[in-house]
């Protein structure tokens, strides 16, 4: 895979406010941030980092609508067309009776669809080995990472300078 053996320069911060300020500085200096890692979702980071809003919820609607249609049409076909039976004098196509199961199918499809999509687009599955820069990122460190595989010595020095100025507690280089 081409993504392998990337040389990554990363700095660790102790606080999410420092991280946000640093990301802002980096964006203003047009530094190309590879990724930002944190132990919890840092609110207000996405607009500073220039991340677009996730479109997962649109897919959620599509999956839900699929589930609702599937449930309703299947029940209609089974009871009204494939094998019509009268239950307690109700019509062959008892629409109000279909509401509960249609609702459950909507929720079932939306939840499963979105969750499977989430893990797929994040590249996460059982057995995937996480490419972790530092074990403390899931504990109390906030990390900004730069891809320096192609970078010149001068640019790397500039990035080191950036980390020092923005108050990073540690700066390391790692092959990812």
């Amino acid at each position, binding site marked *: 895979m081409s993504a392998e053996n990337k040389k990554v320069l990363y700095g660790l911060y102790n606080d999410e406010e420092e991280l946000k300020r640093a990301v802002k500085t980096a964006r203003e200096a047009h530094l190309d941030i590879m990724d930002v890692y944190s132990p919890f979702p840092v609110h207000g980071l996405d607009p500073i980092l220039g991340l677009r809003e996730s479109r997962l919820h649109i897919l959620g609607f599509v999956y839900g609508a699929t589930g609702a249609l599937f449930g309703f049409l299947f029940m209609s076909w089974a009871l009204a067309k494939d094998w019509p039976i009268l239950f307690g004098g109700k019509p062959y196509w008892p629409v109000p009776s279909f509401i509960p199961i249609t609702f459950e199918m909507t929720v079932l499809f939306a939840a499963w669809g979105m969750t499977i999509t989430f893990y797929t687009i994040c590249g996460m599955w059982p057995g995937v080995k996480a490419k972790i820069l530092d074990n403390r*990122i899931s504990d109390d460190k906030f990390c900004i990472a730069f891809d320096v595989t192609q970078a010149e010595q001068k640019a790397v020095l500039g990035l080191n300078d950036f980390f020092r100025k923005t108050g990073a507690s540690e700066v390391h280089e790692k092959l990812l």
Partner: protein
Amino acid sequence: MSHPVAPVRHVLIEGNKTYHQISEDLCVPTERAPSREWILAFSVASAFTALYVFAVVWTIWKGIGEWGTNRTINWAWDITNFVWWIGIGHAGTLISAILLLFRQRWRTGVNRAAEAMTIFAVICAGQFPLIHMGRLWLAFFIFPFPNTRGPLWVNFNSPLLWDVFAISTYFSVSVLFWYTGLVPDLATVRDRAVGFRKKMYEIFSFGWTGAAKHWQRWESLSLILAGLSTPLVLSVHTIVSFDFATSVIPGWHTTIFPPYFVAGAIFSGFAMVQTLMVITRKVLNLQEYITINHIDSMNKVIVLTGTIVGVAYLTELFIAWYSGYIYEQFAFYNRVFGVYWWAYFGMMFCNVVSPQLFWSRRIRRSIWWTFFLSIVVNIGMWFERFVIIATTLARDYLPSSWSYYRPTWVEISIFSGTIGLFFFLFMIFTRVAPVVAIAEVKAILKVAGDQYIGPRARKEAQTVAPMATEKQEERN
């Protein structure tokens, strides 16, 4: 979390925690060797689980005739236990979903454990409809699958079938919600572990890295799963109540059942959360994360839902009298003063009278009162289901078939066995995963930690609190 913090907000994380201290406190219970108390309690739970397995095998081997149910009272402990366990499950979803939508921050201390409790309670509940079918090996008939009998489809008009869909959806969506929330915390455990444990947690944390885009999607997913779970949890107990409400049995076919069942479910669920949390916070030393303020908040929910349930009981009686319909009137007269009068008064005392004690702030904030009353409420809610099911069936249309019901040792074993199974699963959970959501607690530290807000807040901490920095950034 950069909202301004109102001065009236409760402190939710005590002990002047740092991010690292939070990881430390919450991961350690999964890392150290089990204590002697844990092993002892786990042995008891395992013994009851074994009893459960034995009694279920006995039922399947010998047949439903081993139970005390008869032709008149054909639903008894089985369905009582089913509704009771399903109700208990509701609190977990309420805490994790509805309180997330309402932005109640105190949920972060208890949501993980409460969701786990939901899943284990639904596992216990699901057993009962299956084994009460009698021929368990044909249980797959409840699903609409192409078959050689026509194909003959299931009856989509039947609330019992709606139940199949509601409960299986509820279970699987709860598992997704719970596990997706757990993944970042499993990654925290993974990054602290070594050797074989690390290998295991690598598999179970799905390769989580904590990248900004992943967090963004994770939050989006959590929010929408919460949005989906909110109507779902209300629908589940509504549909359970349809099992009764759509029948033509006096005392059952009432339109009040759906809201009354849902309120009762949340009521009993919160009581079970209290029972578990009071023990868990002590044993795992989590008093600084599951504080008295959390217990206080949950007790307020208990007094609210308990009162709703009480109003529902009285409304039922009033409507029975007001309907002018003698069968309905008899059903309720019989419910209160009939052969099972003791169950009715037990229910009234435990569910309506006892939670009113929580109007007192001192009792709400007392661990012992909370623990005691949570057990009383759970007993009361079990009585409620028994009262609805057994007393109503015991006196049916034909006096010649009136009957009385007593559980046999098999039913008692199955029921006490599911309690064992519930604790068995919960105790395994406390050993393998963080009981409190680590990432979520860290995310609210600066708006709920005692060094930032509350009477003991430190000045220097407040200067880095998000509100202050945010304001400063805006000015710049």
